[in-house]
């Protein structure tokens, strides 16, 4: 059996006395869409923050393509090719749309011994990507604070599109979106799958995830409760399981 793209083993996390993650295992293969589902407080976002290196785990191991890795910072996870679209979108209101898309990884050009922001190229790339995503942003120079919830989500997704990571994580990607936006996100996930990119979609709403995911991991109170292939379960029975947790 080939090694999965990502394997997280026996992950534990305590916040003070709260056992936020209690021995969680997750596997994701290349080209596979895994839906992680659970109520608020189930530990989904904590799991992702550990995976991308935002917070340290207390116990457990993470394997990337079979090799054990340590995620000490966002840079570590990005280097491996892990890209996350966060629940709260991680945008900076007072910066322009294009600066937000490239924040932390700005494109630069060299002039003499100095490196300067390549503002024009960043604008052009952002323009192309936001149009591809069907976002109706007046101009990519617009400050993000004037963007709607859907547009902000779009900016976060534009980032993931640009970097075409090996594993893309979408944390509650469609909570803030209109019907049209939801459809675009689903298209985006399908597009990633076609390109053999592993995808984790996190949601508290099964309906959002059911149509795109290949497999579901149900979480409750910091524990992984079920791991079900989509062909083994219908939407209604999945809902029943979740209610019963």
């Amino acid at each position: 059996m080939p090694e999965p793209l990502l394997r997280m083993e026996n992950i534990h996390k305590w916040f003070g006395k709260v056992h936020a993650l209690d021995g969680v295992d997750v596997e994701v293969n290349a080209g596979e869409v895994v839906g992680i589902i659970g109520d608020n407080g189930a530990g989904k976002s904590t799991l992702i923050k550990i995976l991308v290196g935002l917070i340290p785990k207390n116990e457990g191991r993470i394997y990337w393509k079979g090799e054990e890795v340590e995620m000490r910072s966002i840079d570590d996870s990005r280097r491996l090719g892990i890209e996350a679209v966060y629940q709260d979108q991680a945008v900076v209101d007072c910066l322009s749309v294009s600066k937000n898309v490239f924040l932390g990884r700005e494109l630069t050009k060299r002039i003499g011994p100095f490196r300067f922001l390549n503002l024009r190229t960043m604008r052009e790339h952002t323009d192309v990507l936001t149009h591809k995503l069907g976002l109706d942003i007046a101009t990519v120079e617009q400050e993000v604070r004037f963007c709607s919830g859907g547009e902000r989500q779009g900016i976060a997704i534009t980032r993931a599109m640009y970097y075409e990571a090996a594993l893309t994580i979408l944390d509650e990607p469609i909570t803030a979106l209109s019907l049209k936006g939801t459809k675009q996100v689903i298209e985006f996930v399908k597009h990633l799958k076609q390109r053999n990119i592993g995808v984790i979609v996190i949601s508290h709403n099964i309906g959002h995830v059911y149509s795109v995911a290949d497999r579901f991991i149900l979480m409750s109170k910091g524990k992984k409760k079920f791991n079900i292939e989509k062909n083994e379960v219908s939407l209604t029975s999945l809902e029943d399981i979740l209610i019963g947790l």
Partner: protein
Amino acid sequence: MDKQEEPKDKRLQLFLLENLSWILIIVFYALFAAMRPVGMLKWKTMVFIIYSSIPLGFLVFGTGVCLICGRMDLSIAEMAGFVAMLSALILTKWSPGIPPPLDILVPILLGGLCGLFNGFLVGVLSLNPFLATLGTYMAFDGATILLHPYPIYEGFSNLYINLGGVEYIAIPIAIAILIIIQIILKYTKFGNHIYAVGGNASSSRMLGVNPNRMYIIIYTISGLFAGLSALFYTGFLHAVPPGLADGNVFLAFAGAIIGGISLEGGRGSMINAFAGVIFLGVVEAGLAMFNVSPFFRKVVYGFLVVLAILINKYRSTISDKILLPKSS
């Protein structure tokens, strides 16, 4: 481009709002010139206004960088006083052998170290920036007097005094430094991260920009500016009195705010902040023409600060209204 489609009056309005501090300079200068044409309209007066604003200007640069990054440095002026005194003691008494041009590096390096200490308190220990720098404010204030409670007049090299002491040397240097910071802020990755962290530190962290590291760096920069200010005050005064730059942190904040730097972070331009300082210089020169008491000047400055905060508030409401996209 969409920009060209915007109506002309809208762009003009935005331009005027963004450069309000320059308009204030022109209006107040015209006002004072109308009342005291003989004194105010001299070329010498105009040059002196700019020249005398430079030491304070460096404090505004430091304050401005911190504010844009969403932090504040209350200690910057007292730090300048402390660094000026410590450098004076080193250069004139403890180790008078340091030759120019190395001697001018002494206050700058000492300022950088003091700033690094603030950066350690805020960036590493995550202390509240207001309280941490209030603490160092008091410490620098006291330490200056402990070091040497009397002015130092002699023993500096010509270069050390001339940098801040000769108008036609000080002004070009200050303008060159201003242009460099403005370019760093607007056109480099590092500058972009200062705005990003000031705008939203937690989002920046999620995108791989470490706010704590930025805080350490910006406080160090603030300290470097305190050091430059110390050097230029020394030249300007041709001496280092124990009360050098004492209390000027309030003027530095006033200048930055009049220049449109937001207290909430993530916003502002250093060129406009410099205009804020020159504006204060115009008011000072204007009031000097009327021989008003220094206490009256303080009252005027106080009102100007309040006015600046009000103006900033309306400025952002109005510019939001203009900028709000019409689509959807």
